[in-house]
């Protein structure tokens, strides 16, 4: 199992001239440390207009800084909203290719369609159409990368014969992912040969079954790209502390803060009745898990808060359920002081990561 970090870049009120700058600088410091410590990926979301919850509207720019300040960690551009008005597919292909080049081939591209009314309404998008435009985009972007010239007549965009430039550094192209929040989207990913990003289920038993089905379906997929990315990544929260009680307390405060901020946003389904959005979005599944009754320690099941031993125990459950990667949120609205976030990362790398590296080595040796 591999571990990454991801950023919503939440910015708490009250805002002054330094607030956003401070959040971005703290995040970059966390990325540099994560790179040194051996975390495998850093993801940055794309959100617009979500006051406090996420001020990460230009993730490609943020990730360019991440790439420039690190040597090894992969940069996850996702999810990129594949909806007209938000992004033109040509611009997605171009920006992603540049990011892959300047990171020397460290890009992963995550795709999705947005789930909130501030965003869909803000860009005047039709919620009924977003799955269809996503499908069209993700079938075209790999061809823009791999074909010298590309032309297309479609429902959501068309273009005459042109060379989309530059081409990605990775050959044939960077790995492709799909953000999964609505039930069934993981199978959309499987059928298209794409990784499932952010799969979280209501129980580990259900998780195992859906991973099994994902694996079966992706074995017979019709890939949108030149290769199949058959990985499943899950999102989680991380606060690691030597004292379990302190780790759970601070971690739960982060989770609660995140939940509260997310809950202020009107979801697409709340405002605009449509079968296109059956669930809430904004990591709804993970949020429900983190609202669970928890164990005797008061920690929600499957959530990586507490001391290293307990975090290892929870992450082993994800591993056993078939998850390949876990991407962690490290803070929310800056409720955890920066030094503590950095200490949490260091402790996780020192005490938790080896428990999973050993199992990988054992697999190689077996």
């Amino acid at each position, binding site marked *: 199992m591999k571990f990454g970090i991801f950023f919503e870049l939440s910015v708490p*009120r009250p805002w002054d001239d330094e607030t956003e700058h401070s959040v971005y600088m703290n995040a970059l410091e966390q990325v540099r440390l994560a790179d040194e410590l051996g975390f495998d990926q850093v993801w940055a979301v794309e959100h617009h207009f979500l006051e406090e919850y996420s001020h990460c509207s230009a993730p490609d720019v943020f990730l360019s800084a991440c790439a420039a300040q690190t040597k090894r960690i992969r940069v996850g551009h996702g999810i990129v909203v594949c909806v007209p008005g938000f992004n033109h597919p040509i611009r997605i292909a171009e920006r992603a290719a540049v990011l892959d080049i300047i990171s020397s081939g460290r890009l992963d591209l995550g795709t999705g369609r947005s789930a909130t009314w*501030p965003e869909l309404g803000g860009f005047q998008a039709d919620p009924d159409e977003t799955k269809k435009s996503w499908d069209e985009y993700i079938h075209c972007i790999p061809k823009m990368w791999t074909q010298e010239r590309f032309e297309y007549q479609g429902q959501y965009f068309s273009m005459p014969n042109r060379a989309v430039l530059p081409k990605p550094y990775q050959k044939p192209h960077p790995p492709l992912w799909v953000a999964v929040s609505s039930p069934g989207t993981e199978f959309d990913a499987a059928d298209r040969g794409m990784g499932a990003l952010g799969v979280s289920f209501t129980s580990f038993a259900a998780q195992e079954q859906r991973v099994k089905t994902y694996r079966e379906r992706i074995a017979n997929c019709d890939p949108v790209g030149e290769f199949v990315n058959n990985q499943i990544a899950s999102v989680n929260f991380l606060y690691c502390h030597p004292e379990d009680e302190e780790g759970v307390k601070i971690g739960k405060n982060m989770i609660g803060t995140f939940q*509260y901020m997310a809950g*202020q946003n009107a979801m697409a389904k709340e405002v605009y*009745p449509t079968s296109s959005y059956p669930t809430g979005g904004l990591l709804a599944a993970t949020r429900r898990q983190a609202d669970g009754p928890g164990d005797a320690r008061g920690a929600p099941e499957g959530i990586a808060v507490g001391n290293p031993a307990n975090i290892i125990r929870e992450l082993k459950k994800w591993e056993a359920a078939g998850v390949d990667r876990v991407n962690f949120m490290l803070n929310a609205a800056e409720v955890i002081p920066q030094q503590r976030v950095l200490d949490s990362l260091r402790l996780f790398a020192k005490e938790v990561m080896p428990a999973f590296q050993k199992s990988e080595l054992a697999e190689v040796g077996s």
Partner: protein
Amino acid sequence: MAAYGTLAFESVLDNAPALKSLETEPWTLPGARLIQASIEVEREPALAAIPPALHPSLPPYALFAVTEFPESPVGPFRLAQVRIVTRAGTRPRGFLVGAVCDSDVAAAELAARWGYSVVPGEVKLVERHDRWIGTVVRDGATIMQVTCRDPQLINGADIDLVDTLTLARHESESLLMQVDPEYVYHAAHRGHAELEFDSASWGRGLLAGSVRPTSPNVAVCCRVDTDLPTPRFVIDPAKPALLGTRRISAVGEPAD
């Protein structure tokens, strides 16, 4: 953290309904017809119209609704409501800022049982093939007309009708009463929202004539069996809802 409402609710409490009891019997309301538009409103006046217990939603929006109840314990009536959508903690709730009813008997019961602050007026709901239209007239003037244009059939399960909070008094206490009906859909449609709205005529002056609809979003019209249930929760309007919400003794629900 998220902003809280700034309504000085004490100043309007004298006009708020006085509840007879917190444990009223439910009403069954079969065969209702409902039209409702969800429309964004300006942030600052929306903040000024909701009490400190509540956050505005992001983006701030309001619900403009007309419902026809052909059957009720007090006979048929029609009710128009304007609610600003808020968050009680993280839960979506529509805070009632104004209501008009065409039945004096129903209006009195709605006030005494569920805290609806209702004024009398003409309320109509007209159903055409190309649109549904809800109209509210007071003193000879149309103060609201809400239209669902070009309605398309959808699944009722896709509609999330937001529960209501009313501002009321009970004995010496001021409170927000949660009204959370159930809905069984017999037909549901979604269409384009159109609204004519005289905000100065609504809400005991709560809206102060300044809540301006900014972005017509969407309207729904549907036929439902619904109810007005026995209340389950009340909120202290002065405290954040996470701290000020309490379960009240109710049929089928244990008291804390």
